């Protein structure tokens, strides 16, 4: 079975999930909880956008490193990456809402903060005006989102063309160049994106490690999502070419990047906790005092589960264990996304309830619908690639 068929059963399930999301959104809006609904849209929007972005990044890494093992999984990564335009749209809705003051996610967009005669005047935020002003912010947002989308489409298009026309060595070299350009651009812009869209929620606060932390978070979510979709496809009789060694390698990625995420999270936390400078420590104060248990729980889930359960070789090859860990840490990283936005916008009023979970399910439904739809548009394993043969024989102990 080379060609994936998107069954009606899955379609109905995903449309059902989207319906849940729509109901949750409407409930949020009409019960007068606008701020909560907008925040929730940003939490899930960023989470699923990040997964698509991480998939493009991983395609780039595999091309640049000339890695052979992942070639049979390339189409799954591409499928996930093709959620990018939809994720962009979901983010843009929130950005437009913030710009037109329909929501108040970005506190610094309030004009009165910059007016010395106003009672709302904020000297710290006014000092950030050369960087954090609407026109410049929008230029950066459009540049970043535009170029990321462009690269996504280029990688996808080239992959489809290569299937048709062959000439694998030519595409191999061209993809290497494209990936190198993309990775350099991505390396800088992921930081700019995380400052602009996430760190500026807590406008007074700053952290130099923040970009790395966000990057490792989307990376692990992306890998886990691709792994879960691969396991699903294999279980339904597709992707026969993917063997235990490929799954083992994906398991290693989940294990390794979970550690990277924990390492960066902790590095950021410990330095701020130790130095105890008021302007830095506010970020963690609101999170620990008002959300203490769930906040620590999120960190522990994202660290302990992959560490304990994915330590041994056999576990990394066991689809059941991988699915269990995958689902748990995917939720854990959604929680991470929750803590990026909620305490900054809602202060101590944030909850995890119908609106947040419902909208997450809705976005998940949309995400899976788009990804599964994209998977049907090309053979599940690339037909022609310079390293395809090596990938088919991939074997590690």
């Amino acid at each position, binding site marked *: 079975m080379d060609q994936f068929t998107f069954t009606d059963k899955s379609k109905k399930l995903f449309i059902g999930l989207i319906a849940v999301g729509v109901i949750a959104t409407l409930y949020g809006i009409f019960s007068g909880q606008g701020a909560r609904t907008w925040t929730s849209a940003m939490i899930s929007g960023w989470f699923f956008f990040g997964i698509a972005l991480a998939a493009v990044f991983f395609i780039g890494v595999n091309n640049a490193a000339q890695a052979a093992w992942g070639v049979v999984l390339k189409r799954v990564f591409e499928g996930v990456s093709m959620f990018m335009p939809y994720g962009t749209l979901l983010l843009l809705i929130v950005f437009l809402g913030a710009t037109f003051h329909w929501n108040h996610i970005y506190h610094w967009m309030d004009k009165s903060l910059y007016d010395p005669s106003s009672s709302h005047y904020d000297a710290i935020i006014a000092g950030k005006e050369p960087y954090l002003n609407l026109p410049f912010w929008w230029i950066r947002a459009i540049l970043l989102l535009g170029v990321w989308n462009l690269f996504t489409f280029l990688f996808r298009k080239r992959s489809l063309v290569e299937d048709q026309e062959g000439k694998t060595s030519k595409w191999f070299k061209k993809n290497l160049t494209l990936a190198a350009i993309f990775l350099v651009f991505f390396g800088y812009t992921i930081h700019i994106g995380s400052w602009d869209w996430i760190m500026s929620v807590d406008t007074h606060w700053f952290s130099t490690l923040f970009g790395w932390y966000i990057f490792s978070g989307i990376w692990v979510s992306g890998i886990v999502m691709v792994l879960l979709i691969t396991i699903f496809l294999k279980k339904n009789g597709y992707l026969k070419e993917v063997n235990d060694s490929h799954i083992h390698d994906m398991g290693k990625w989940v294990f390794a990047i979970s550690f990277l995420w924990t390492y960066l999270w*902790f590095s950021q*936390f*410990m330095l701020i*906790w*130790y*130095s*105890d400078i008021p302007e830095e420590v506010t970020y963690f104060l609101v999170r620990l005092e008002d959300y203490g248990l769930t906040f620590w729980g999120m960190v522990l889930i994202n660290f302990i589960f992959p560490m304990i359960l994915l*330590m*041994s*070789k056999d576990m990394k090859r066991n689809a059941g264990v991988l699915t269990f860990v995958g689902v748990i840490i995917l939720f854990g990283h959604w929680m991470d996304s929750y803590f990026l936005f909620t305490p900054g916008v809602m202060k101590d009023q944030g909850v995890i309830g119908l609106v947040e979970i419902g909208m997450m399910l809705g976005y998940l439904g949309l995400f899976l619908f788009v990804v599964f739809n994209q998977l049907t548009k090309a053979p599940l394993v690339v037909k022609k690639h310079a390293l395809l043969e090596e990938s088919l024989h991939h*074997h590690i*102990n």
Partner: protein
Amino acid sequence: MTKEKYLYGLYNDDELLVDGIKHVQSKGIKVNDAYSPFPVHGLEDVLGIKWTRLAIAAFLFGLTGLTLAMLAINYFMIIDWPMNIGGKPSFNFYENLPAFVPIMFEFTVLCAAHGMAITYFFRNMTFPGMPARNPHPRTTDDHFAVEISPEGNGMSVEDLKNALKETEVVEIFEKERITKFV
């Protein structure tokens, strides 16, 4: 120190080595070991080498390191000599845990890494300065050797040599090597 005499076949390519081993094994000859300058893909499956338990040892060493680090930090920083660092007086372990995590982590890694290396040396008896056990100096460079015990195969040495000659072998020789140091 015990020494034993073995029969060796030398190859100049890793794939020829694996093919050679498969060939002599198909004749019912038990291959004792193989020597290679680098890890050869699939060689351990052909030789039937058991999966290493070094990972389990590493885990236990790491756990030991973590426990030692926690006990030591608790004694140094809480019990014996509490200090006020950056406005954080160390009166209990739990409240100062974030500051101790780097040391706990580093000591875990230190114990696991050194434990693994030392275990590896002990298991293989390959401490620095030990006499070499490989049959031919070129097995550390660009040649590959297969090792067969002349006894215990129910064949004469001539038959074993003939079986090796049917493969792409470049040299056949007999040599004593150290099998046990103690």
